[in-house]
């Protein structure tokens, strides 16, 4: 084992943990902002800071630990009711969290932290919390689990057997004892009984356990806090000494009275695992390969006509399908973490812009594929920034317009079929469609005589040209960063809907697929070629006879129970020159534009489809979202019905291969 490599690995895992804690801390701080008197939130913040400080020191992030220490002390003052919670403390702590983040990342390729900013924040924190300047962090750390002022001194019996990996994880038990000594008088004895014979001894494992007696006024929880960084797999017993137990019982709350034995193999630790995302991706890739091979097996079994082979094949099909679903589920994460991140953005922007904005959320538990979530942060940020910057006015202006001075931004997420709808709404000024149109004409994005629908007009704000626009008016500035939104949503095979009413507000809805890796598809054949249509959008399949075609006077419209549905003949679209069968099939698909049909020669059946990217070369081919390998080894293109339908409808309006410029985004006015 390479010790240097290990150290870096520990640091890396500390960074990961700390990043998560920082996110939680930020959320807790903003919660505290709204509810300044909640001791539970203060406690959470304190513990978070304590963990970062302690783990940081353990893994060699001395500067970070020292910096965090002062913050922790400040929150201890808050916890003890000596320091009131105010906007200053919260803002200060938020900027301190940024510094902690910088200190954390500077060793991981991030830019170096700004020592001056750190010093400034520190001195402000000290001033606020009344921490004397000489008690700087460089000195030996003062009690990190400060002894409560009240409460009698009691003796606690502590037995501590470290987990097998504690030393390997970079922890040092000696430091724990030092921390315990901060709480009170400690006597301890190391027990060597568990050390195995030399030959069998794992040199990197800790076999020693400790018996300790601690005399302190601190409670069991404070003692337990000392061990929070080494809790994995360790055995920890904290008991009030028998002689003073009666007193303890009389004085302490029931919870602390009988702390009993607490194994730190908490259910949390057992029931969840931290797995690198790359491993998960690899796993899903393998499942994808399995699905492909299974499809081949099914086909083979069908050809062989051997009942035994067929039985095994069916069994494998069932298992593969379950495995696929499971592996997809593992990748699903609630969107909450992404949403919560924006509390801070809204808080900071509101302060900087002098606006009063309340952020509300809905459906934060909605689950989405990790890959989708990872890419959602940026577009949502741009949407929120735009709302805050241009959509929402200052409290004074709002009041003058008869609105509530506090503006609202609402984030929501919900499932809709195989998609997730994520919406950012505000109750701001709305988009002035006429101004957008004028500005687009000025910039030459659309011809001056263009007749645009409202949806087409709103689509213009996502044009790259708009994003670089000089801020002629507030409205023209509204396009800033929006092309980023469009690009990202495009790459996720999603669509954007904008609904806006002047003076009332704007809602931008992103419709995104639940997952990007595997879809349920419907295999269709045209001539010798095979295509896959996503099953999620497919409604039904109808026959198209010569008579039907004559009936429609050559127009591509199918009569489905009295409703006329436009369709596209894939044979014509892809220029496949084989003889057309007498009876074609039309797959009716639900799109943003309404129902739409695709005429094919035959429907071959269901298939679980592993999406393979077509590679950079075909990136601009938007009607195809990927390809898949079929059971017989041939490649089938996965079609994007949305894009195909849009292209077809646009061609019908503007003439075939017309000049339409408005971006290929589905815009559907009137859908909230």
């Amino acid at each position, binding site marked *: *084992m390479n*010790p240097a490599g290990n150290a870096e690995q520990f640091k890396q895992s500390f960074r990961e943990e700390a990043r998560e804690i920082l996110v939680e801390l930020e959320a807790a701080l903003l919660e505290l902002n709204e509810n300044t008197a909640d001791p539970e939130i203060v406690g959470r913040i304190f513990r978070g800071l304590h963990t970062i400080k302690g783990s940081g020191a353990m893994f060699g992030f001395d500067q970070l630990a020292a910096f965090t220490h002062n913050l922790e002390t400040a929150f201890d003052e808050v916890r003890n009711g000596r320091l009131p919670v105010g906007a200053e403390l919260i803002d200060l702590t938020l900027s301190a969290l940024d510094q902690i983040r910088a200190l954390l990342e500077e060793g991981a390729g991030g830019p170096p932290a700004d020592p001056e900013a750190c010093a400034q924040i520190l001195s402000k924190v000290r001033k606020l919390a009344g921490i004397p300047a000489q008690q700087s962090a460089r000195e030996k750390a003062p009690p990190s689990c400060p002894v409560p002022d009240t409460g009698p001194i009691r003796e606690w019996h502590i037995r501590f057997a470290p987990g097998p990996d504690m*030393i*390997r994880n970079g922890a*040092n*038990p*000696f430091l724990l*004892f*030092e921390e315990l000594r901060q709480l009170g008088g400690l006597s*301890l*004895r*190391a027990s*060597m009984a568990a*050390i*195995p*014979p*030399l*030959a069998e*001894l794992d*040199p*990197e*494992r*800790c*076999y*020693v356990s*400790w*018996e*300790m007696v601690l005399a302190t006024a601190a409670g069991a929880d404070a003692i337990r806090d000392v061990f929070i960084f080494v809790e994995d797999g360790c055995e920890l017993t904290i008991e009030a000494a028998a002689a003073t137990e009666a007193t303890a019982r009389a004085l302490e709350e029931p919870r602390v009275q009988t702390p009993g034995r607490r194994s730190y193999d908490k259910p949390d630790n057992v029931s969840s695992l931290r797995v690198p995302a790359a491993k998960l991706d690899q796993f899903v890739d393998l499942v994808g390969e399995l699905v492909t091979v299974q499809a081949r097996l099914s086909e083979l079994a069908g050809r062989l006509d051997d009942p035994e082979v067929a039985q095994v094949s069916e069994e494998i099909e069932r298992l593969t399908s379950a495995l696929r679903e499971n592996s997809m589920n593992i990748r699903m994460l609630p969107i909450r973490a992404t949403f919560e991140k924006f509390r801070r953005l809204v808080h900071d922007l509101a302060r900087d812009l002098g606006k009063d904005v309340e952020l509300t959320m809905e459906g934060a538990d909605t689950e989405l594929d990790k890959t989708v979530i990872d890419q959602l942060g940026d577009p949502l940020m741009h949407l929120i920034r735009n709302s805050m910057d241009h959509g929402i006015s200052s409290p004074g202006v709002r009041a003058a317009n008869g609105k509530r001075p506090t503006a609202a931004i609402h984030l929501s997420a919900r499932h809709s079929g195989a998609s997730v709808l994520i919406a950012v709404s505000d109750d701001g000024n709305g988009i002035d469609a006429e101004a957008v149109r004028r500005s687009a004409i000025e910039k030459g994005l659309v011809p001056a005589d263009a007749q645009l629908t409202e949806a087409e007009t709103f689509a213009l704000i996502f044009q790259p040209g708009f994003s670089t626009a000089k801020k002629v008016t507030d409205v023209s500035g509204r396009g800033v960063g929006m092309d980023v939104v469009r690009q990202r949503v495009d790459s996720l095979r999603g669509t954007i809907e904008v609904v806006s009413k002047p003076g009332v507000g704007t809602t931008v809805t992103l419709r995104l697929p639940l997952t990007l890796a595997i879809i349920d598809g419907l295999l269709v054949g045209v001539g010798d070629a095979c295509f896959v249509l996503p099953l999620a959008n497919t409604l039904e399949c109808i026959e198209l006879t010569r008579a039907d075609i004559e009936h429609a006077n050559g127009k591509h419209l199918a009569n489905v129970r009295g409703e006329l549905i436009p369709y596209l003949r894939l044979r014509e679209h892809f220029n496949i020159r084989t003889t057309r069968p007498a009876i074609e099939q039309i797959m009716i698909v639900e799109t943003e534009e309404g129902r739409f049909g695709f005429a094919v020669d035959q429907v071959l059946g269901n298939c679980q489809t592993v999406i393979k990217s077509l590679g950079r070369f075909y990136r601009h081919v938007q009607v195809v979202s990927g390809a898949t390998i079929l059971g017989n080894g041939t490649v089938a293109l996965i079609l994007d019905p949305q894009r195909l339908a849009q292209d077809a409808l646009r061609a019908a309006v503007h003439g075939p291969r017309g000049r339409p410029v408005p971006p290929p985004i589905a815009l559907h006015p009137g859908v909230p």
Partner: protein
Amino acid sequence: VPLTHEREEELITIRMEGEVGIASAAELKELLVQALGSGQQVRVSLRSITDLDVTAVELLWAARREAKASGSAFALQGPIPPMVLSGLLQAGFDEFAADLDASEGSGENQ
């Protein structure tokens, strides 16, 4: 590497220097196993250490226990630097440290 060892006639000396911890634990184990298996006298010098972590204490403890059981000569040679000694006492390794003092004399005699 904080560990060196030399073989004289009848005597193997393992010299530890600086911080002796998990980074050199596997190596220390190897040296101790070899030395004990050689049947010669073994001496471990702690004079130049600046830190001794729990893994090193465990290895030395196990080695000495085995030497005692088989009746072979094994000595932890001091004097151990006071900082390290106080660290050991603070961590409750009184028993281990007490034996260190006792073995100091035998080491000095060499």
